[in-house]
C-alpha cells in the first residue's frame, strides 16, 4: 500500500470529524506526560477523573454561570438587533449609534465590573450585564450588514405597493439578516460565557468564575485544566449547536462578515473627524447624565469633569498622565506584537490549509477550542506555559486574534472566483501562482474585516491578562487603582482604553475601506 492509499484507508475508518479531536487529546496527554512537575499540565485522563469525582460541584457551577450567560446572551443579542434596526431606520443617526456602541463595547471589564456591582448590589446583575455587554457589538455589526445586504429589487417590490421602511424591515430585511445574525450568535456564545465568569469576580457564591479563582489560588492544576476543558466544551457545543440550528432553519449557510460598517468615517477625512467629534460629545453627555440619574457617590463615580481635572487641569495632572502613559506603553508593547502575530498566524495557517486541505481536519478543532476557552481560564494555563512577561500577554492576544482571522481568511481564500482560477489553470499556473495572483487578493477583504473586529477582542485580552497574571500595564493599573480607591486613575484609564480601542478600530476600518475599494469593489459601499 502506498502512503497515500494508507492515509485514504485511515480516513475511511476514522471519520474526518473525529480525527482532529482525537489528535488533540493525544497531543494533550503527551504534553501532560512530557512536562515535568505536577503543577503545570493535567492531562485529559486526570481531568476526566477530577470531573468524575466532583461532578456535582461542576454541574452546579456550570448551571449558575450558564444561566447568567444565557440571560445576558439573550438580552445582549436582542439589544444588538434593536440597535441595528434603529440604525437602519434612522440612517442619519447610524454613525452615532455605531460609534457609541463601539465605545461602550471597548470599556474594559476590569473597570465595569465594580461599577456594576455597586449599581446592582448583590445578585447576578453584573454577571448578566457583563455577558450582555460582551456580545452585543459582535452581533450588532453583522446584523446591520445583513439588514442592508438585500437586493434592491426586493425593496423596490415593497415600495411598488406603496409601503415604506417598516414594511421593508419586517417583510424583507429581518429575514434576509438571519444568516448574519447566526454568524453573530456563534461568536457571541463563548463571549457571553466569559462575561458571566468575569461578572462572578465582582462577588458571587458559586459559578465557573468562582471555581477558576479557587483553582488559581489553590494551586489546583487539575481543577484549572478541568475548568478550561468544561468551558471550552460548553463554548464549542454552543457554537456548534447554533450552527446546527441554523443549517436546519435556514436555506443558506451563515456568511462570513466582510462589509465594513460605514461608521463615522465617510469618504472624506473631515467628515470622519466630525463623526468622531459627535460621538465624543454625545458619549460625554450620556456619561454625565447617567451618573446624575444613577445618583452614584462621587467618591467612586467620576464624571467627565473629574477625569479632565485628573488628566489635564487638576493638581498632579502631569504625574497622572505620566503614570497612565507608562502603563499604556507597556500595554501597547504586548498588544501590538500579539495582535500582529495573531493576524499573521491566522492568515498563514489559512494559506497552509488551503494548499493542503487534508490538514483542516486537525487544525480546525484546535483552532475552535483555542478560541472557545474563556480567556480567564486560559490565562493561568498560558502563563504556566509561556511565562508572565510581555511574551505571555502577547501570546494570549495572539490566540484571541488568531481564530477569527483564520476563519475569515479561509473563507476569503475560497472566494477566489472559479473562472479566474480556471484561467490560471489554462496557463498552466500551479497552486502557488494561483494563490499569489488569485486567492490572496480575494482573501484581503476578509483579512481586514477580521483585523477590524479583532481590535476590541485584543484589547480585552491584554487588559484581562495584565490584570490577572502579569501585573503590568493598563489592566493592572485599573485593578490596583480600584483596590486603592484611586477612582480618578481607574476612570481615566478606562476612558483611555476605550477611546484608543475605538480609534484603532476606526483606523483599521479606514484601511479596510481602501482595500475593499480595490479588491472587492462590490462590497465597498
Amino acid at each position, binding site marked *: 500500500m502506498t502512503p497515500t492509499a494508507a492515509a485514504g484507508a485511515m480516513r475511511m475508518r476514522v471519520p474526518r470529524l473525529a480525527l482532529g479531536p482525537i489528535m488533540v487529546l493525544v497531543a494533550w496527554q503527551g504534553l501532560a506526560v512530557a512536562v515535568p512537575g505536577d503543577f503545570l499540565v493535567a492531562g485529559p485522563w486526570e481531568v476526566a477523573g477530577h470531573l468524575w469525582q466532583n461532578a456535582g460541584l461542576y454541574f452546579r457551577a456550570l448551571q449558575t454561570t450558564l444561566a447568567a450567560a444565557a440571560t445576558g446572551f439573550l438580552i445582549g443579542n436582542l439589544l444588538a438587533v434593536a440597535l441595528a434596526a434603529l440604525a437602519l431606520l434612522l440612517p442619519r443617526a447610524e454613525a452615532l449609534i455605531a460609534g457609541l456602541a463601539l465605545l461602550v463595547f471597548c470599556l474594559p471589564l476590569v473597570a465595569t465590573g465594580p461599577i456594576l456591582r455597586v449599581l446592582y448590589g448583590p445578585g447576578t446583575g453584573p454577571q448578566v450585564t457583563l455577558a450582555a455587554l460582551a456580545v452585543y457589538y459582535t452581533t450588532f455589526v453583522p446584523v446591520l450588514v445583513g439588514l442592508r445586504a438585500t437586493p434592491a429589487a426586493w425593496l423596490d417590490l415593497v415600495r411598488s405597493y406603496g409601503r415604506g421602511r417598516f414594511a421593508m424591515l419586517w417583510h424583507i430585511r429581518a429575514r434576509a439578516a438571519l444568516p448574519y445574525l447566526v454568524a453573530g450568535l456563534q461568536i457571541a456564545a463563548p463571549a457571553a460565557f466569559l462575561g458571566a465568569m468575569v461578572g462572578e469576580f465582582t462577588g458571587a457564591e458559586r459559578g465557573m468564575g468562582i471555581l477558576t479563582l479557587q483553582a488559581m489560588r489553590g494551586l489546583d492544576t487539575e481543577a484549572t485544566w478541568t475548568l478550561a476543558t468544561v468551558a471550552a466544551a460548553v463554548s464549542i457545543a454552543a457554537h456548534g449547536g447554533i450552527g446546527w440550528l441554523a443549517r436546519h432553519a*435556514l436555506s443558506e449557510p451563515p456568511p462570513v462578515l466582510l462589509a465594513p460598517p460605514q461608521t463615522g468615517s465617510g469618504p472624506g477625512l473631515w467628515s470622519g473627524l466630525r463623526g468622531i467629534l459627535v460621538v465624543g460629545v454625545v458619549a460625554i453627555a450620556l456619561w454625565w447624565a447617567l451618573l446624575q440619574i444613577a445618583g452614584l457617590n462621587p467618591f467612586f463615580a467620576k464624571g467627565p469633569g473629574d477625569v479632565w481635572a485628573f488628566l489635564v487641569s487638576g493638581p498632579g495632572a502631569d504625574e497622572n498622565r505620566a503614570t497612565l502613559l507608562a502603563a499604556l506603553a507597556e500595554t501597547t508593547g504586548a498588544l501590538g506584537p500579539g495582535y500582529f502575530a495573531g493576524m499573521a498566524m491566522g492568515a498563514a495557517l489559512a494559506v497552509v490549509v488551503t494548499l493542503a486541505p487534508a490538514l483542516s481536519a486537525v487544525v480546525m478543532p484546535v483552532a475552535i477550542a483555542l478560541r472557545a476557552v474563556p480567556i480567564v481560564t486560559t490565562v493561568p494555563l498560558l502563563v504556566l506555559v509561556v511565562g508572565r512577561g510581555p511574551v505571555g500577554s502577547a501570546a494570549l492576544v495572539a490566540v484571541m486574534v488568531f481564530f477569527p482571522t483564520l476563519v475569515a481568511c479561509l473563507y476569503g481564500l475560497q472566494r477566489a472566483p472559479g473562472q479566474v482560477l480556471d484561467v490560471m489553470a489554462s496557463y498552466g499556473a500551479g497552486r502557488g501562482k494561483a494563490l499569489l495572483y488569485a486567492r490572496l487578493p480575494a482573501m484581503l477583504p476578509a483579512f481586514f474585516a477580521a483585523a477590524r473586529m479583532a481590535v476590541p477582542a485584543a484589547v480585552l485580552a491584554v487588559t484581562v491578562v495584565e490584570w490577572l497574571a502579569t501585573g503590568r500595564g493598563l489592566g493592572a493599573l485599573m485593578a490596583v487603582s480600584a483596590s486603592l480607591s484611586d477612582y480618578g486613575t481607574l476612570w481615566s484609564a478606562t476612558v483611555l482604553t476605550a477611546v484608543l480601542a475605538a480609534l484603532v478600530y476606526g483606523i483599521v476600518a479606514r484601511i479596510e475601506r481602501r482595500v475593499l475599494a480595490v479588491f472587492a469593489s462590490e462590497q465597498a459601499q
Partner: protein
Amino acid sequence: MPADPRIAPDIVCKGLAKRFGDVVAVDPLDVTFRGGQTTALVGPSGCGKSTLLRLVAGLERPDAGSIRIGDDTPDAVRAQAGLAIAFQDPSLLPWRTARGNVALAQRLAGQRVDAAAIDAMLDLVGLDGFFDARPGALSGGMRQRAAIARCLITQPRLLLLDEPFGAVDELTRRKLSEDLPPIWQARGTTTLLVTHSVTEAVLLSQRVLVFSPRPARIVADIAIDLPDPRPGQETTPAFIDLAEQVSAALIGGEGPSPRRLAAQ
C-alpha cells in the same frame, strides 16, 4: 379594445426629466400611454426606458415634469396598491414558497390573503404542483411565472414589466410569452412592457415606442393593429412588416446607418 378610464386610466407624462449625477437618463419627455393598452418600450441598452418605467412606478422622483395616472400621482396609485412591477430578475424571496411569495404581495398591498385566489392564480400561470416549492427548487421560467402571479394577484390597474422574460432561454421565453400575456390582456390592465426583443414587442403590444440612445427620446411610435391571438402570426407579412418598421426605427435611432443613407 375599449377601456374603462376608471380601471384603466391613461398615463400622461409631461416634461419628464431625470438625471443621475452627470448622466441624463430622461430628457424632457412628453408621452401618453393609453389606458387598457399594452405599450412596448424598445430601445438600446441604457437608453433610459427602465428609468421611465421606474418613474411611472414612483420608485424614482423626476427632476422635472409630472406624471398623472388618471387623476392620481404615481405615489397615490402605489399607496392604493394600484400597480405591480416585475423585473428581469424574478426577485422572489428565497425563504418563501411560491404560495408565500404571492401571498406577500397581498399582504404588502394591504389586502386579505386569499389562499384560494392564490392557488387559482398559481394554477393559471402554470405552476400547478409547485405551490409549496421554494424559489431555489424552481427553474428560471417557473420563477418568472411565480413573479407574474405575484404581480397579478393584487388586481393592479397598471402593470409595469421590465424585461420580464429577459433572463430565460429562448425556448422558455417563447413559452412564457404565449402563456402569460393573455392573462393580463384579458383583464384589460394598462401595461408598460420594456423589452429588447422586437418580436416580443410586436407580439405582445398594441403600440410600440422606439427610444433613441440616452437621453431617451421617442424616435418612432408604431401602432400594432394585428388581430388577436397573435402567436402563430410571426411569419405573416403584416407581422414581419411591423417588425421591420420597429427594427428600422431602432437602427435609425442609433444614428445614420449605411442602409438609411442608401435609402435617401
